[in-house]
Protein backbone atom coordinates (compact mmCIF):
# COMPACT_ATOMS: atom_id res chain seq x y z
CA UNK A 1 0.00 0.00 0.00
CA UNK A 2 2.72 2.46 0.93
CA UNK A 3 4.40 1.68 -2.30
CA UNK A 4 1.31 2.65 -4.24
CA UNK A 5 0.92 5.86 -2.29
CA UNK A 6 4.51 6.89 -2.72
CA UNK A 7 4.54 6.24 -6.44
CA UNK A 8 1.18 7.90 -7.13
CA UNK A 9 1.45 10.98 -4.96
CA UNK A 10 3.95 12.89 -7.13
CA UNK A 11 1.82 12.39 -10.23
CA UNK A 12 -1.31 13.47 -8.45
CA UNK A 13 0.30 16.49 -6.84
CA UNK A 14 1.70 17.57 -10.15
CA UNK A 15 -1.77 17.27 -11.77
CA UNK A 16 -3.13 19.27 -8.88
CA UNK A 17 -0.60 22.05 -9.35
CA UNK A 18 -0.95 22.00 -13.10
CA UNK A 19 -4.73 21.87 -13.47
CA UNK A 20 -6.79 21.66 -10.31
CA UNK A 21 -5.43 24.73 -8.57
CA UNK A 22 -4.96 27.01 -11.60
CA UNK A 23 -8.41 26.07 -12.85
CA UNK A 24 -9.95 26.84 -9.47
CA UNK A 25 -8.12 30.12 -8.99
CA UNK A 26 -8.58 31.52 -12.49
CA UNK A 27 -12.22 30.47 -12.64
CA UNK A 28 -12.92 31.88 -9.23
CA UNK A 29 -11.45 35.27 -10.04
CA UNK A 30 -13.33 35.49 -13.33
CA UNK A 31 -16.46 34.13 -11.67
CA UNK A 32 -16.21 36.79 -9.01
CA UNK A 33 -15.97 39.55 -11.58
CA UNK A 34 -18.96 38.11 -13.39
CA UNK A 35 -20.78 37.78 -10.09
CA UNK A 36 -20.19 41.39 -9.12
CA UNK A 37 -21.37 42.60 -12.53
CA UNK A 38 -24.44 40.39 -12.42
CA UNK A 39 -25.22 41.40 -8.87
CA UNK A 40 -24.92 45.08 -9.77
CA UNK A 41 -27.15 44.67 -12.81
CA UNK A 42 -29.80 43.11 -10.62
CA UNK A 43 -29.20 45.53 -7.78
CA UNK A 44 -28.98 48.98 -9.35
CA UNK A 45 -32.24 50.58 -10.35
CA UNK A 46 -31.86 52.24 -13.75
CA UNK A 47 -32.46 55.94 -14.06
CA UNK A 48 -35.72 57.03 -15.68
CA UNK A 49 -33.92 58.04 -18.88
CA UNK A 50 -35.42 55.71 -21.46
CA UNK A 51 -32.19 55.32 -23.37
CA UNK A 52 -30.71 53.77 -20.26
CA UNK A 53 -33.75 52.21 -18.72
CA UNK A 54 -34.83 49.74 -21.40
CA UNK A 55 -31.41 48.40 -22.27
CA UNK A 56 -30.80 48.04 -18.55
CA UNK A 57 -34.00 46.12 -18.00
CA UNK A 58 -33.08 43.88 -20.94
CA UNK A 59 -29.67 43.32 -19.39
CA UNK A 60 -31.35 42.49 -16.12
CA UNK A 61 -33.60 39.95 -17.80
CA UNK A 62 -30.51 38.33 -19.26
CA UNK A 63 -28.83 38.33 -15.85
CA UNK A 64 -31.88 36.73 -14.25
CA UNK A 65 -32.00 34.07 -16.91
CA UNK A 66 -28.29 33.39 -16.62
CA UNK A 67 -28.44 32.97 -12.86
CA UNK A 68 -31.50 30.74 -13.05
CA UNK A 69 -30.00 28.60 -15.79
CA UNK A 70 -26.64 28.00 -14.19
CA UNK A 71 -28.06 27.40 -10.75
CA UNK A 72 -30.70 24.94 -11.83
CA UNK A 73 -28.67 22.67 -14.11
CA UNK A 74 -25.77 20.40 -13.22
CA UNK A 75 -22.27 21.74 -13.67
CA UNK A 76 -21.28 18.60 -15.58
CA UNK A 77 -23.91 19.33 -18.20
CA UNK A 78 -22.78 22.93 -18.44
CA UNK A 79 -19.20 21.86 -19.11
CA UNK A 80 -20.31 19.28 -21.61
CA UNK A 81 -22.43 21.69 -23.56
CA UNK A 82 -19.72 24.34 -23.64
CA UNK A 83 -17.08 21.91 -24.81
CA UNK A 84 -18.99 19.53 -27.06
CA UNK A 85 -22.05 21.56 -27.90
CA UNK A 86 -20.67 24.95 -28.87
CA UNK A 87 -18.55 23.61 -31.78
CA UNK A 88 -21.77 22.86 -33.63
CA UNK A 89 -22.43 26.59 -33.33
CA UNK A 90 -18.99 27.22 -34.72
CA UNK A 91 -17.36 28.02 -31.39
CA UNK A 92 -14.56 25.65 -30.65
CA UNK A 93 -12.71 26.05 -27.40
CA UNK A 94 -9.68 24.36 -25.95
CA UNK A 95 -10.50 22.12 -22.98
CA UNK A 96 -8.87 24.45 -20.51
CA UNK A 97 -10.67 27.53 -21.83
CA UNK A 98 -13.96 25.63 -21.91
CA UNK A 99 -13.41 24.53 -18.33
CA UNK A 100 -12.56 28.05 -17.21
CA UNK A 101 -15.68 29.38 -18.92
CA UNK A 102 -17.89 26.70 -17.41
CA UNK A 103 -16.53 27.01 -13.91
CA UNK A 104 -16.53 30.82 -14.00
CA UNK A 105 -20.07 31.03 -15.22
CA UNK A 106 -21.26 28.51 -12.67
CA UNK A 107 -19.41 30.21 -9.84
CA UNK A 108 -20.59 33.57 -11.10
CA UNK A 109 -24.22 32.53 -10.95
CA UNK A 110 -24.03 31.32 -7.37
CA UNK A 111 -21.73 34.06 -6.15
CA UNK A 112 -23.86 36.78 -7.71
CA UNK A 113 -26.70 35.82 -5.39
CA UNK A 114 -24.34 35.90 -2.42
CA UNK A 115 -23.07 39.32 -3.39
CA UNK A 116 -26.51 40.66 -4.14
CA UNK A 117 -27.80 39.64 -0.75
CA UNK A 118 -24.70 41.19 0.83
CA UNK A 119 -25.36 44.42 -1.07
CA UNK A 120 -28.96 44.34 0.10
CA UNK A 121 -27.83 43.92 3.68
CA UNK A 122 -25.93 47.22 3.64
CA UNK A 123 -28.55 49.57 5.09
CA UNK A 124 -30.24 52.30 3.06
CA UNK A 125 -28.89 54.73 5.66
CA UNK A 126 -25.42 54.31 4.21
CA UNK A 127 -26.68 55.30 0.79
CA UNK A 128 -28.53 58.28 2.22
CA UNK A 129 -25.45 59.45 4.06
CA UNK A 130 -23.35 59.15 0.91
CA UNK A 131 -25.88 60.89 -1.34
CA UNK A 132 -26.13 63.72 1.15
CA UNK A 133 -22.37 64.14 0.79
CA UNK A 134 -22.87 64.32 -2.98
CA UNK A 135 -21.24 61.00 -3.79
CA UNK A 136 -22.47 59.58 -7.08
CA UNK A 137 -24.02 56.12 -7.16
CA UNK A 138 -20.79 54.73 -8.50
CA UNK A 139 -18.66 56.42 -5.83
CA UNK A 140 -21.03 55.22 -3.12
CA UNK A 141 -20.79 51.69 -4.42
CA UNK A 142 -17.04 51.65 -4.73
CA UNK A 143 -16.07 53.46 -1.56
CA UNK A 144 -18.86 52.64 0.87
CA UNK A 145 -21.18 49.82 -0.06
CA UNK A 146 -19.01 47.26 -1.85
CA UNK A 147 -16.32 47.22 0.87
CA UNK A 148 -19.00 46.51 3.45
CA UNK A 149 -20.70 43.93 1.24
CA UNK A 150 -17.45 42.09 0.62
CA UNK A 151 -16.98 41.71 4.33
CA UNK A 152 -20.41 40.15 4.65
CA UNK A 153 -20.03 37.95 1.59
CA UNK A 154 -16.59 36.62 2.45
CA UNK A 155 -17.55 33.47 4.39
CA UNK A 156 -20.08 32.18 1.84
CA UNK A 157 -17.72 33.08 -1.01
CA UNK A 158 -14.93 31.13 0.62
CA UNK A 159 -17.24 28.17 0.85
CA UNK A 160 -17.99 28.52 -2.85
CA UNK A 161 -14.30 28.54 -3.60
CA UNK A 162 -13.70 25.39 -1.58
CA UNK A 163 -16.60 23.80 -3.43
CA UNK A 164 -15.07 24.88 -6.71
CA UNK A 165 -11.76 23.21 -5.88
CA UNK A 166 -13.58 19.92 -5.47
CA UNK A 167 -15.74 20.49 -8.53
CA UNK A 168 -12.69 20.80 -10.77
CA UNK A 169 -12.75 17.00 -10.82
CA UNK A 170 -15.55 17.33 -13.36
CA UNK A 171 -13.08 18.85 -15.80
CA UNK A 172 -11.98 15.32 -16.63
CA UNK A 173 -15.20 14.87 -18.58
CA UNK A 174 -13.93 17.44 -21.05
CA UNK A 175 -10.58 15.70 -21.37
CA UNK A 176 -8.60 17.63 -18.80
CA UNK A 177 -6.15 15.49 -16.89
CA UNK A 178 -6.85 17.00 -13.52
CA UNK A 179 -5.88 15.34 -10.32
CA UNK A 180 -8.89 13.10 -9.93
CA UNK A 181 -8.59 11.84 -13.49
CA UNK A 182 -4.94 11.05 -12.87
CA UNK A 183 -5.92 9.05 -9.82
CA UNK A 184 -8.39 7.13 -11.98
CA UNK A 185 -5.72 6.37 -14.54
CA UNK A 186 -3.49 5.04 -11.83
CA UNK A 187 -6.41 2.97 -10.62
CA UNK A 188 -6.67 1.43 -14.05
CA UNK A 189 -3.24 -0.04 -13.46
CA UNK A 190 -3.22 -0.87 -9.77
CA UNK A 191 -6.91 -1.81 -9.38
CA UNK A 192 -7.17 -0.03 -6.02
CA UNK A 193 -9.92 2.52 -6.58
CA UNK A 194 -10.72 2.80 -2.89
CA UNK A 195 -7.17 3.63 -1.97
CA UNK A 196 -6.68 6.02 -4.86
CA UNK A 197 -9.95 7.80 -4.16
CA UNK A 198 -8.96 8.20 -0.53
CA UNK A 199 -5.62 9.57 -1.58
CA UNK A 200 -7.39 12.07 -3.83
CA UNK A 201 -9.73 12.95 -0.99
CA UNK A 202 -6.74 13.52 1.24
CA UNK A 203 -5.17 15.93 -1.24
CA UNK A 204 -8.45 17.82 -1.61
CA UNK A 205 -8.75 17.99 2.16
CA UNK A 206 -5.25 19.43 2.47
CA UNK A 207 -5.98 22.12 -0.11
CA UNK A 208 -9.41 22.89 1.35
CA UNK A 209 -8.02 23.13 4.87
CA UNK A 210 -5.30 25.49 3.72
CA UNK A 211 -7.94 27.57 1.97
CA UNK A 212 -10.04 27.61 5.13
CA UNK A 213 -7.08 28.96 7.05
CA UNK A 214 -6.68 31.63 4.39
CA UNK A 215 -10.37 32.43 4.74
CA UNK A 216 -10.04 32.92 8.49
CA UNK A 217 -7.07 35.14 7.91
CA UNK A 218 -8.94 37.26 5.37
CA UNK A 219 -11.96 37.46 7.61
CA UNK A 220 -9.83 38.71 10.44
CA UNK A 221 -8.17 41.27 8.19
CA UNK A 222 -11.34 42.62 6.66
CA UNK A 223 -13.20 42.63 9.95
CA UNK A 224 -10.79 45.11 11.50
CA UNK A 225 -13.52 47.68 11.60
CA UNK A 226 -16.13 45.47 13.23
CA UNK A 227 -13.89 44.36 16.06
CA UNK A 228 -15.19 46.97 18.39
CA UNK A 229 -18.66 45.60 17.97
CA UNK A 230 -17.64 42.19 19.27
CA UNK A 231 -17.17 43.53 22.80
Amino acid at each position, binding site marked *: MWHIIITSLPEMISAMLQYTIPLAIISFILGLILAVLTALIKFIEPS*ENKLIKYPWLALRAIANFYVWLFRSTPLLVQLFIIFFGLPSAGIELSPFIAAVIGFSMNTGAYASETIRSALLSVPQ*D*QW*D*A*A*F*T*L*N*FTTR*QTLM*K*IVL*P*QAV*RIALPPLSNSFIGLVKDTSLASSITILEMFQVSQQITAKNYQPLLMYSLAAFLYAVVCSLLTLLQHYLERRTS*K*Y*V*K*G*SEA
Partner: protein
Amino acid sequence: MISLKNVVKKYGSKEVLKNLNVDFPDGKTTVILGPSGSGKSTLLRSLDLLVRPESGTLDFGDISLDYSQPVSKKKSFDIRKKTSMVFQNWNLFPNLTVLQNITTAPMTVLKQSKVDAEKHAKILLGQVGLAEYADRYPSQLSGGQQQRISICRALAMNPEYILLDEPTSALDPELETQVLLILGELSKMNQSMIIVTHNMDFARSVADKIVFVEDGDILFDGTPDDFFNHPTTRIRDFLSGITFNDNEALK
Protein backbone atom coordinates in the same frame (compact mmCIF):
# COMPACT_ATOMS: atom_id res chain seq x y z
CA MET B 1 -32.59 81.61 2.58
CA ILE B 2 -34.36 78.39 1.74
CA SER B 3 -38.03 78.66 0.81
CA LEU B 4 -40.43 75.83 0.25
CA LYS B 5 -43.69 76.62 -1.50
CA ASN B 6 -46.78 74.45 -1.92
CA VAL B 7 -44.91 71.28 -1.21
CA VAL B 8 -46.95 68.07 -1.41
CA LYS B 9 -45.52 64.66 -0.65
CA LYS B 10 -47.53 61.47 -0.81
CA TYR B 11 -46.76 57.92 0.20
CA GLY B 12 -49.26 55.86 -1.71
CA SER B 13 -52.51 57.71 -1.28
CA LYS B 14 -51.47 59.26 2.03
CA GLU B 15 -50.47 62.91 1.99
CA VAL B 16 -47.52 63.23 4.33
CA LEU B 17 -46.82 66.87 3.48
CA LYS B 18 -49.93 68.86 2.69
CA ASN B 19 -49.20 71.91 0.58
CA LEU B 20 -46.53 73.25 2.91
CA ASN B 21 -45.03 76.72 2.78
CA VAL B 22 -42.07 77.56 4.95
CA ASP B 23 -38.84 79.59 4.98
CA PHE B 24 -35.55 78.77 6.65
CA PRO B 25 -33.59 81.99 7.13
CA ASP B 26 -29.84 82.33 6.60
CA GLY B 27 -27.50 82.34 9.57
CA LYS B 28 -30.26 81.27 11.93
CA THR B 29 -31.23 78.10 13.71
CA THR B 30 -34.68 76.83 12.79
CA VAL B 31 -36.08 74.09 15.00
CA ILE B 32 -38.78 71.77 13.67
CA LEU B 33 -41.04 70.25 16.31
CA GLY B 34 -44.03 67.98 16.14
CA PRO B 35 -45.40 64.61 17.17
CA SER B 36 -44.05 61.35 15.84
CA GLY B 37 -45.10 60.63 12.27
CA SER B 38 -46.12 64.22 11.59
CA GLY B 39 -43.75 64.62 8.65
CA LYS B 40 -40.72 66.33 10.18
CA SER B 41 -38.14 63.98 8.67
CA THR B 42 -39.91 64.03 5.34
CA LEU B 43 -39.79 67.82 5.33
CA LEU B 44 -36.10 67.90 6.22
CA ARG B 45 -35.19 65.24 3.68
CA SER B 46 -37.04 67.09 0.94
CA LEU B 47 -34.54 69.93 1.36
CA ASP B 48 -31.69 67.56 0.60
CA LEU B 49 -33.55 65.65 -2.14
CA LEU B 50 -33.39 62.38 -0.20
CA VAL B 51 -37.16 62.56 -0.50
CA ARG B 52 -38.80 63.76 -3.71
CA PRO B 53 -42.12 65.53 -3.13
CA GLU B 54 -44.72 65.25 -5.89
CA SER B 55 -45.07 68.98 -6.33
CA GLY B 56 -44.04 72.36 -4.99
CA THR B 57 -40.91 74.47 -5.35
CA LEU B 58 -37.67 74.93 -3.51
CA ASP B 59 -35.82 78.23 -3.67
CA PHE B 60 -32.31 78.25 -2.35
CA GLY B 61 -30.28 81.38 -3.08
CA ASP B 62 -29.85 81.47 -6.83
CA ILE B 63 -31.14 77.95 -7.36
CA SER B 64 -34.79 77.23 -7.81
CA LEU B 65 -36.29 73.84 -8.32
CA ASP B 66 -39.73 72.55 -9.22
CA TYR B 67 -40.26 69.22 -7.51
CA SER B 68 -42.74 68.10 -10.14
CA GLN B 69 -40.07 68.33 -12.86
CA PRO B 70 -37.13 65.98 -13.36
CA VAL B 71 -34.10 67.34 -11.52
CA SER B 72 -30.85 67.59 -13.41
CA LYS B 73 -27.76 65.99 -11.89
CA LYS B 74 -26.15 69.40 -11.75
CA LYS B 75 -29.00 70.99 -9.81
CA SER B 76 -29.18 68.13 -7.36
CA PHE B 77 -25.41 68.37 -6.91
CA ASP B 78 -25.55 72.12 -6.28
CA ILE B 79 -28.32 71.84 -3.73
CA ARG B 80 -26.62 69.04 -1.84
CA LYS B 81 -23.39 70.99 -1.95
CA LYS B 82 -25.02 73.78 0.01
CA THR B 83 -26.52 71.43 2.60
CA SER B 84 -25.22 68.65 4.82
CA MET B 85 -27.31 66.20 6.76
CA VAL B 86 -26.59 64.81 10.23
CA PHE B 87 -28.62 61.71 10.94
CA GLN B 88 -30.23 60.36 14.09
CA ASN B 89 -28.15 57.20 13.96
CA TRP B 90 -25.04 59.01 12.72
CA ASN B 91 -24.69 56.74 9.66
CA LEU B 92 -20.94 56.88 9.78
CA PHE B 93 -19.24 54.59 7.29
CA PRO B 94 -18.14 51.59 9.35
CA ASN B 95 -15.47 50.55 6.86
CA LEU B 96 -13.61 53.86 7.12
CA THR B 97 -11.65 55.32 9.99
CA VAL B 98 -12.85 58.44 11.73
CA LEU B 99 -10.47 60.55 9.66
CA GLN B 100 -11.47 58.87 6.41
CA ASN B 101 -15.13 59.35 7.27
CA ILE B 102 -14.49 63.07 7.34
CA THR B 103 -12.04 63.41 4.44
CA THR B 104 -13.45 61.03 1.80
CA ALA B 105 -16.23 63.32 0.64
CA PRO B 106 -14.10 66.52 0.44
CA MET B 107 -11.48 64.59 -1.51
CA THR B 108 -13.88 62.71 -3.79
CA VAL B 109 -16.52 65.34 -4.30
CA LEU B 110 -14.80 68.67 -3.75
CA LYS B 111 -11.46 67.40 -5.15
CA GLN B 112 -9.54 68.69 -2.17
CA SER B 113 -6.01 67.39 -1.77
CA LYS B 114 -5.49 64.75 0.86
CA VAL B 115 -3.29 67.11 2.87
CA ASP B 116 -5.87 69.90 2.91
CA ALA B 117 -8.73 67.56 3.69
CA GLU B 118 -6.88 65.97 6.59
CA LYS B 119 -5.77 69.31 7.95
CA HIS B 120 -9.34 70.58 7.96
CA ALA B 121 -10.61 67.29 9.43
CA LYS B 122 -8.14 67.49 12.27
CA ILE B 123 -9.13 71.03 13.11
CA LEU B 124 -12.77 69.97 13.22
CA LEU B 125 -11.98 66.91 15.34
CA GLY B 126 -10.09 69.14 17.73
CA GLN B 127 -13.08 71.45 18.03
CA VAL B 128 -15.33 68.61 19.14
CA GLY B 129 -12.69 67.22 21.50
CA LEU B 130 -11.90 64.08 19.53
CA ALA B 131 -8.51 64.92 18.02
CA GLU B 132 -6.97 61.68 19.23
CA TYR B 133 -9.59 59.41 17.76
CA ALA B 134 -8.70 60.04 14.12
CA ASP B 135 -7.49 56.51 13.43
CA ARG B 136 -10.21 54.56 15.18
CA TYR B 137 -13.16 52.94 13.50
CA PRO B 138 -16.66 54.22 14.31
CA SER B 139 -17.65 50.97 16.01
CA GLN B 140 -14.96 51.59 18.61
CA LEU B 141 -16.58 54.81 19.78
CA SER B 142 -19.56 55.70 21.93
CA GLY B 143 -22.74 57.08 20.42
CA GLY B 144 -21.99 60.62 21.50
CA GLN B 145 -18.56 60.45 19.96
CA GLN B 146 -19.95 59.06 16.73
CA GLN B 147 -22.53 61.80 16.54
CA ARG B 148 -19.86 64.46 17.01
CA ILE B 149 -17.86 62.90 14.21
CA SER B 150 -20.86 62.91 11.94
CA ILE B 151 -21.18 66.63 12.65
CA CYS B 152 -17.54 67.03 11.64
CA ARG B 153 -18.24 65.06 8.47
CA ALA B 154 -21.06 67.47 7.62
CA LEU B 155 -18.99 70.55 8.42
CA ALA B 156 -16.06 69.33 6.34
CA MET B 157 -18.15 69.94 3.21
CA ASN B 158 -18.46 73.65 4.10
CA PRO B 159 -22.21 73.59 3.68
CA GLU B 160 -24.35 76.69 3.94
CA TYR B 161 -26.98 74.82 5.90
CA ILE B 162 -26.63 71.92 8.26
CA LEU B 163 -29.73 69.75 8.52
CA LEU B 164 -30.03 67.67 11.67
CA ASP B 165 -32.67 64.98 12.18
CA GLU B 166 -33.04 64.21 15.87
CA PRO B 167 -29.31 64.41 16.36
CA THR B 168 -29.38 63.34 20.01
CA SER B 169 -32.36 61.09 20.40
CA ALA B 170 -30.23 57.93 20.23
CA LEU B 171 -27.93 59.19 22.98
CA ASP B 172 -28.22 58.93 26.72
CA PRO B 173 -28.59 62.22 28.61
CA GLU B 174 -24.95 62.81 29.36
CA LEU B 175 -23.81 62.10 25.82
CA GLU B 176 -26.71 64.20 24.60
CA THR B 177 -25.40 67.15 26.56
CA GLN B 178 -22.02 66.89 24.85
CA VAL B 179 -23.57 67.07 21.42
CA LEU B 180 -26.04 69.78 22.31
CA LEU B 181 -23.23 71.97 23.63
CA ILE B 182 -21.46 71.70 20.28
CA LEU B 183 -24.63 72.55 18.37
CA GLY B 184 -25.13 75.51 20.71
CA GLU B 185 -21.64 76.73 19.76
CA LEU B 186 -22.42 76.41 16.07
CA SER B 187 -25.64 78.29 16.54
CA LYS B 188 -23.81 81.10 18.29
CA MET B 189 -21.42 81.31 15.32
CA ASN B 190 -24.45 81.95 13.09
CA GLN B 191 -24.13 78.69 11.19
CA SER B 192 -27.43 78.20 9.34
CA MET B 193 -29.08 75.14 10.84
CA ILE B 194 -32.35 73.29 10.63
CA ILE B 195 -32.86 70.92 13.51
CA VAL B 196 -35.58 68.36 14.16
CA THR B 197 -35.57 67.55 17.85
CA HIS B 198 -37.69 66.28 20.70
CA ASN B 199 -35.65 68.08 23.32
CA MET B 200 -37.73 71.09 24.29
CA ASP B 201 -35.12 72.59 26.59
CA PHE B 202 -32.62 72.53 23.77
CA ALA B 203 -35.15 73.91 21.29
CA ARG B 204 -35.93 76.73 23.64
CA SER B 205 -32.28 77.62 24.21
CA VAL B 206 -31.00 77.40 20.65
CA ALA B 207 -33.86 78.19 18.27
CA ASP B 208 -34.18 81.47 16.38
CA LYS B 209 -37.35 80.17 14.82
CA ILE B 210 -39.75 77.33 15.59
CA VAL B 211 -41.76 75.39 13.04
CA PHE B 212 -44.40 73.08 14.49
CA VAL B 213 -45.61 70.35 12.17
CA GLU B 214 -48.57 68.10 12.70
CA ASP B 215 -50.08 65.68 10.26
CA GLY B 216 -48.22 67.20 7.33
CA ASP B 217 -49.39 70.72 8.11
CA ILE B 218 -47.53 73.60 9.66
CA LEU B 219 -49.51 74.63 12.73
CA PHE B 220 -47.01 77.16 13.97
CA ASP B 221 -44.24 79.18 12.38
CA GLY B 222 -42.75 81.85 14.64
CA THR B 223 -40.48 82.73 17.51
CA PRO B 224 -39.57 80.42 20.38
CA ASP B 225 -41.00 82.96 22.76
CA ASP B 226 -44.45 82.77 21.13
CA PHE B 227 -44.24 79.00 20.94
CA PHE B 228 -43.28 78.28 24.52
CA ASN B 229 -44.83 81.21 26.31
CA HIS B 230 -48.07 81.74 24.39
CA PRO B 231 -48.94 78.25 23.17
CA THR B 232 -52.22 77.33 21.55
CA THR B 233 -54.21 74.49 23.14
CA ARG B 234 -52.77 71.95 20.74
CA ILE B 235 -49.22 73.11 21.41
CA ARG B 236 -49.82 73.04 25.14
CA ASP B 237 -51.09 69.48 24.84
CA PHE B 238 -48.03 68.61 22.80
CA LEU B 239 -45.66 70.19 25.27
CA SER B 240 -47.15 68.28 28.17
CA GLY B 241 -46.79 65.06 26.23
CA ILE B 242 -50.39 63.93 25.95
CA THR B 243 -50.87 60.23 25.21
CA PHE B 244 -53.14 58.84 22.57
CA ASN B 245 -55.52 55.99 22.95
CA ASP B 246 -53.95 53.37 20.75
CA ASN B 247 -57.17 51.47 20.44
CA GLU B 248 -58.68 54.41 18.69
CA ALA B 249 -55.67 54.79 16.48
CA LEU B 250 -56.14 51.17 15.47
CA LYS B 251 -59.66 51.63 14.23
